[in-house]
């Protein structure tokens, strides 16, 4: 039977015999134990500032933005800012004239707020923000701790370790299989190939602004504001 409770008491575990009752041998036994550890075991500690610790690929150091071909991968979708539990991320988006159409105008992570949880990396749909191996940061002032694009952007090549780790152990498809192609990810009306193709087909480009009729469309059933109502009490959790 798994998890059987047993009283594993041995007969004389609480009583000491005469020899064990002598005080001094115990002192020397204790010293011997420590001496043994000192002499027999290899050094376990690092002389920290001189010797640096190199973290494994899985390590979650400070978040950085991936720079690909000189541009940030980020499309400024704000999802990381939404997911960030301590609200450390803020950004301003702007439209740009490449395939991705959007980019952050500025992007800030307040490193005093960041708790290195890795949620930003986990939710980012572009693999644009990932955790680096940098773990020792010091600041002279609070302003210095707010990292902007200049300090956040890291070329993709420098982050290969982490990207590979993510690819191997975090990103893997585990459910139903899809036919993955990198191209599937481009849904852009500023993609030149796509526009060329449209022109070939005799179409003159697309309107790229679509306004929704009713921007506040929702069922209106759930309140997300301060007036949340207590639900009716039910006895059991649904199975």
């Amino acid at each position, binding site marked *: 039977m798994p998890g059987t409770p047993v009283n594993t008491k041995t007969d004389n575990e609480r009583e000491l015999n005469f020899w064990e009752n002598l005080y001094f041998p115990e002192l020397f036994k204790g010293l011997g134990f420590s001496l043994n550890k000192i002499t027999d075991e290899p050094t376990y500690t690092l002389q920290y500032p001189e010797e640096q610790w190199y973290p494994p690929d899985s390590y979650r150091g400070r978040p950085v933005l991936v720079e690909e071909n000189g541009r940030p991968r980020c499309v400024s979708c704000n999802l990381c800012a939404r997911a960030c*539990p301590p609200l450390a991320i803020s950004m301003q988006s702007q439209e740009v004239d490449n395939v991705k159409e959007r980019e952050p105008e500025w992007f800030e992570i307040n490193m005093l707020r960041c708790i290195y949880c890795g949620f930003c990396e986990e939710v980012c749909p572009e693999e644009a923000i990932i955790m680096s191996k940098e773990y020792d940061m010091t600041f002279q002032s609070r302003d210095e701790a707010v990292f902007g694009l200049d300090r956040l952007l890291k070329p993709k090549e420098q982050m290969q370790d982490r990207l590979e780790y993510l690819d191997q152990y*975090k990103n893997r498809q585990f459910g139903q299989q899809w036919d993955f192609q990198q191209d599937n990810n481009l849904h852009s009306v500023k993609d030149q190939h796509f526009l060329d193709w449209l022109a070939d087909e005799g179409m003159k480009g697309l309107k790229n602004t679509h306004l929704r009729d009713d921007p506040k469309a929702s069922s209106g059933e759930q309140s997300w504001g301060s007036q949340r109502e207590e639900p009716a009490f039910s006895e059991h959790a649904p199975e």
Partner: protein
Amino acid sequence: MATAPQFPGLDFGDKFRFWPKHNEKIYERLEAKHAWIEEKRAAQGDGGVPATEWSEEDPLENEMILNMGPQHPATHGVLRCVVKLDGETIEKAVLDIGYLHRGIEKLAESKTYQEFMPYTDRMDYLSPYSNNVAWCLAVEKLAGIEIPERAAWIRMIMCELARISSHCLWLGVGLMDAGAVSGFLWTFQQREDIYSIFDEVAGARFTVSHARIGGVASDLTPRSFELIRAFCDSFREELASWQKFLNRNRIWIERNKDVGRITKEEAIELGMTGPNLRGSGVEYDVRRFEPYLKYDEVDFTIPIRDEGDCLARYFLRLEEMEQSIRIIEQCLDRMPEGPIRADDAKQAYPSKDEVYYSMEGMIHDFMYTDVGTQAPKGANAYHAVESPKGELGFYLTSDGTGRPFRVRINAPSFTNLQGMEYIMEGSLVADTVVIIGSIDPVMGEADK
């Protein structure tokens, strides 16, 4: 010149000065407390005059009020014990907690279920993984989410490692409290090894945040398997050497024997949990009585002791570590290949492959981040796990949105502290540190 208007409420006096009033209340409570020890003495009928009346001159035989903590190294964080001493005996004790209060129950109400997870790391910061798992299991129960098998085994391994890590700290600090400072280093070396494993698996040494609603965040790397296996072997040896050294050590035994005794009835009445309860002979362990994850499929024993003193709890915790190693080894052998998160975008994050390369995946990713798991409206669930400190449970109420309507945390350190005043009364003041160490409260969890 007009005179300044007389606002009645400008000088609030001491209305908002919390501290003096609080302090006063604590002392009042200490005074008003019914000291059972006096009663016991009377009932035993030794009939002598209470110690305080013996002598007017000798200060040692007078009553004295002593504050231990909150910044006392032996109080495991910020626990304040106000004790009334009668000579060297503690006559009455009052605990003052709340110095680490962060209001995380309230915080949870404004976070999605997933977003709240990193906060649980910071409750019992000595075994963050157990807290992650407890939270996830509670949410999964609330929303009816099934987790894949591999995820369950991974969670189990990590939970048991967290148990070892927490018990290592308890032992090290216990040794240090009793005077053996180097013992602290030996146990911390083992904790360091466990941290390396957490690092390899979860990406952080301390605040792991690795479990996810519906599974776990990432799969184990081959290197983490190696590390875990190597740790199991080396820790067995290390544990045996500790046992050899401490089990027959007169100093250690005399420091712990008959100190902080709780009988079976008292333990149940005071609501103790975890090793403190089992040390008094109550056979209660959530892993066995309400098996979660795969605990009903692995073979292990639950050590019990009857004596209920610090020594009994010492033996018990050491044996628990042995059992944890056994569980981990079985998990490693039996872990199947397979998915690590539920394959349902309403219950867990989709894989990143899916998010990057399919439109549906991306939508799921956005929806899950923003709205999260939506438990049915009005659902309630309580789920408890056996954390190293005892029964750790989350009680959740859902209002149908992605955020809990109310979270109630049943923290083992908090429940264990309930018994502590009682245990301390009647013991010697020098034993308090041993007692606190042996009850093993973590203030991050008790204060929430």
